[in-house]
């Protein structure tokens, strides 16, 4: 059970790294601004998921707990168990901030891409340099 779990965890982490690579390819190679934009969202979502995975705690035998102390801890032992068995909430707070900031940039970029489309009649980046490189 535990081996299977850690294998899956590694697979998830590795796939996030691959995801980042694919997204970077999309951002720099794809000629369409919309596709670049989608790749950009995939890129930052991968980084954010990576951060969530960072706060995850692997607990043998059960699921990780919530990082909330609902009762007054009865002793050091319980407090220690709490700190090792519950998910770290800080990366989630950081990711929340990063998502909000990302949203602002995405809104702005969508507006810009619309303006670009109005100017050039296409969303291909090579339009501005006159003629397409098919």
């Amino acid at each position, binding site marked *: 059970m535990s081996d299977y779990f850690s294998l899956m965890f590694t697979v998830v982490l590795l796939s996030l790294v691959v995801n980042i690579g694919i997204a970077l390819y999309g*951002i720099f190679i794809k000629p369409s601004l919309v596709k670049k*934009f989608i790749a*950009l969202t995939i890129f930052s979502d991968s980084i954010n998921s990576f951060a969530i995975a*960072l706060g995850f705690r692997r607990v043998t035998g059960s699921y990780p707990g919530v990082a909330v102390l609902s009762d007054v801890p009865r002793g050091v032992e319980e407090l220690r168990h709490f700190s090792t068995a519950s998910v770290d909430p800080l990366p989630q707070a950081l990711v929340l901030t*990063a998502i909000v*900031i990302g949203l602002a*940039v995405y809104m702005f*970029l969508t507006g810009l891409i619309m*303006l670009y489309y109005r100017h050039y009649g296409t969303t291909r980046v090579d339009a*501005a340099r006159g003629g397409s490189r098919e």
Partner: protein
Amino acid sequence: MLTAALLPLLLIGLAFALPAISLVVRNPRFFRIYAVTASLLALAMALDVAVGVYRTGVTYYLFGGFRPPLGIVYTIDKLGAVLGLLSIFILAMSTIYSTWMVRSRWEYLYYTALLALGAGSVGCLYTGDVFNFFVMLEVLSISAYVLVAFYRDNPRAVEASIRYSMVGMVATSFYLLSAFVIYGSFGTLNMADVALKARSPLAQIQYSGGVFGNVILSSALAIALSMWTFTFKAAIFPNHFWLPDANPEAPTPISALFVAVIDLIGAYGAIRYLYTIFGTGSVIEYLRSDIMLVLHVLGALSALVGALLLVVQTDVKKFIAYSTISHMGLAFMAFTLGTERGVVAAIVQLVSNSLSEALLFYSAGIAIVASGRAVEGLSTLRRYRLASVAFVVGLLNLFGVVPLFIGFWSKVLIFIAMVEVGYIASALVLVVSTGISGLGYVRLIRYLTRPSGSVREDGRLRDLRVPYVVISVVLLALVLLGALFIYLPEFRALLEVVGTEVLDYGKYVEAVLGGTFK
């Protein structure tokens, strides 16, 4: 120190109150006065912070009163204070200049973005938190994207802004990733705490297993990722491509701000990471010299590439942008030497470069209004004597062969610092890039002596009091800095203290964490 914490918050608050105010007030004159007042207030506060930091040493402010390493803390050392004063000074000058230059229906949005840009910049310089640095970096970047695309009817501005914001988003995301890596490895985001834990194995805690459990590997990863962001922000060679695109398409006052507000943050971040956080004695010390060498070579390349490309530019704004790349390269070459003298030289170089590029943009702005962005249009500056004098002074300062100006002394300092550590090839690069860019500067001065062409009919040219005031203040600052540097040993000592403090990470750590362990 409360002023330090209030400064970015005040700028942000005043900036985002503007769109709300615009629902009630429609008069553009109100927005101009509002923005100028806000930026002058910010300047006074930045001055107060700088004086305070010089009096008492590293100061800090705890947000919400949480003891570090919990909570967000602002830590201001002399480096941050000096650069913060510089960036807010140029911000104030650009705001005043904008009241003359920028005419648009969307003026309130322009000032919103302008004030937010200043807040982001000064927030980056004052913050003592790795993640807060990211937030402020994004505030700075988003305002910069908006301002580049401000003339949205111009397709080139839209295109430049798209390119800038896409790559900029990737760059800042890399910084975010590096912040996560630091958190995963050290279990803290406080810069002073990371600096302590990166040095003392006693302070380290096994925060997480796997890749992050290896402090050395993850520190190297964090450095690699964040250096990508910093070289992007500072427009260093492989990541320099956005500056000549984005900078010229922005309104001229914003172009003047780019060096002092955006490129500065790249250099500052690199210094902070390579000296304070992962400096001497840290776990990756043996890698640090290699990283410094790579950055040094990149700086040399961008000094040469910038100098070579500026010679052939036919657009004034592009010309100044390439000059920026060349000079930022020199600043990077200076502080990657790893010596105190190198850091001081880099700071003097940043100050001199920011002031003279701003001066060039302010005086060229008059020519741009009068005849457009082509270099030939500079001949119209002959009609505006103060602007042409300022333009020549700015160019000579950048050229750095006249010992009257600070630009000469910054190059001398860099040269001495290079020779001191035996980097003769780098000193040669400095001389060669100065020589090549000199060709460009002399060519520009020659355009100024040509007979003046016809001038566009533009209402703004009738009343030049505002730009003249801005130009004379910046010109005075530039000349005064040179004079102070030559005649006052105390002034030089003030600058050297900054370098000493950068190398002495202990003070930074102690100021923040000292109270916790008492």
